[in-house]
């Protein structure tokens, strides 16, 4: 009991550190990728290949002036970024990071909480993710920030629907709401993406909208709204908002990998004959590679596609994605029914 508790604490802290470090270095990779796409070098002055750039950025953010507008709602102004960060870090609890590892003859799961409603838990976190932005945008008492917050909330609510509907077909196929069960059923190369290509596409598009990434970064659309919901923020409070976006990217990559790309599974997984702990490490690296791939897609699209207009965003969400997702659910149901007979 105590050993289990200790193990979970260590695992949770480890995942926290990994999420933060990955988010930190995503900022560097993002700028490197942008440089690559625009035929320039990107940051390369701080350390070899600019490897110390995230640290320099962090120090810069910490030492910038902490500014608070006079008319702001003080408590909510501070609560906004804190809540965004907190909620961004919550999702990783339900993700299975690898197969069981063996310590002193006992198996331990590489997952903080194997709840039987893991998929719903992730929905719940997604649906409350908008609070940080809304609270921060409203508390700034600035019209641009308020407009950004209002945009963020309607965008996230709209795309949540299509996202949930696209996962329902996965749940129907798997017959379980547990993340671990969903991964286990994609053993080897039996990935869900081959059965649910449309569902995957819908989920991917919605993930962009939910993480407020370009081409759907309308809440912070700088050509119309100055800086969007974080116009009034400075110093590390702004840093929290920017940082949580990268954590969200990492986590949504992990969720997409778990649901559609077979989690930590890879072809010929059972033919290696490795000892359990080495096997777990290899599987985790595979999982991590897949997440990195999604991270690259996020950056790739940001630096190649222009931003949507707001009415286009709403039309895409309500008139294309939701009907497509419902169609996907119906088709999946029919196929399952035919297979049963």
């Amino acid at each position, binding site marked *: 009991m105590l050993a289990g508790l200790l193990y979970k604490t260590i695992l949770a802290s480890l995942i926290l550190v990994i999420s933060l470090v990955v988010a930190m270095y995503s900022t560097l990779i993002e700028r490197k990728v942008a440089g690559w796409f625009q035929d320039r070098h990107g940051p390369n002055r701080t350390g070899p290949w600019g490897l110390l750039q995230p640290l320099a950025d962090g120090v810069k953010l910490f030492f910038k002036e902490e500014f608070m507008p006079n008319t702001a*709602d003080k408590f*909510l102004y501070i609560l906004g970024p804190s809540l965004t960060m907190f909620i961004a870090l919550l999702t990783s609890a339900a993700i299975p990071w690898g197969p069981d590892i063996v310590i002193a003859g006992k198996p331990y799961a590489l997952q903080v909480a194997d*709840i*039987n*409603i893991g998929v*719903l*838990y992730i*929905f*719940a976190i*997604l*649906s*409350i993710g*908008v*609070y940080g932005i*809304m*609270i921060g945008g*409203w508390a700034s008492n600035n019209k641009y920030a*308020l407009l950004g*917050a*209002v945009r963020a*909330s*309607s965008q*996230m*609510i709209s795309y*949540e629907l299509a996202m949930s509907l696209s996962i329902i077909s996965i749940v129907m196929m798997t017959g379980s*709401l547990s993340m671990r069960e969903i991964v286990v059923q994609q053993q080897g190369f039996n990935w869900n993406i081959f059965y649910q290509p449309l569902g995957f596409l819908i989920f991917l598009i919605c993930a962009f909208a939910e993480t407020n990434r370009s081409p759907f970064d309308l809440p912070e659309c700088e050509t119309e709204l100055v800086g969007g919901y974080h116009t009034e923020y400075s110093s590390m409070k702004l840093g929290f908002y920017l940082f949580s976006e990268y954590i969200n990217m990492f986590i949504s990559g992990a969720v997409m990998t778990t649901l559609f790309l077979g989690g930590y599974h890879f072809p010929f997984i059972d033919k290696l004959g490795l000892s359990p702990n080495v096997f777990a490490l290899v599987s985790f690296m595979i999982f991590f590679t897949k997440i990195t791939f999604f991270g690259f897609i996020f950056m790739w699209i940001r630096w190649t596609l222009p931003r949507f207009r707001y009415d286009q965003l709403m039309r895409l969400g309500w008139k294309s994605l939701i009907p497509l997702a419902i169609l996907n659910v119906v088709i999946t149901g029919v196929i399952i029914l035919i297979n049963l007979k």
Partner: protein
Amino acid sequence: MFTEYIFFFLSVLALYSAVMVLASKKPIHSVLFLTLTFFAIAGHYVLLNAQFLAVVHVIVYAGAIMVLFLFTVMLLNLNNDERSPKPVWAKTMVSIASGMLLLVLIGIFRTYDIKSAADPTLTQIGLVKNLGQILFHEFLLPFEISSVLFLTAMVGAVLLGKKEQI
């Protein structure tokens, strides 16, 4: 023992934030306190081993309905000074009515024998599998009818939201 502490913490949180919904001056604060109340109640569901209910509660109430509330209140941008003070007779009537309700509630629960509830760790009814079995076997008809009701409400909302005359 530990769960007892959590129970008391959640109860105090739920009651405090419910009172603050009424007591806070700004509408936005009221909405946020109501959200907090919902989270505390979701915590109670988890303590009762009803994880499915807890998560659905968070998704539906905290995640969708309260966000819409917040959205509307933000757009209206209600200020404290814009709200007209209620006349005295209205305040008196509201106090009397709610006082009567309180009396009735006390009357009901004074003689009510509070049985010790079944151990929530033993009842597995709140788990999603058992709940699904019961909903789709024993209560299939009411379940389907309520979903038709939701559909009707949705169609009605869309019709009301349409600008031009039909």
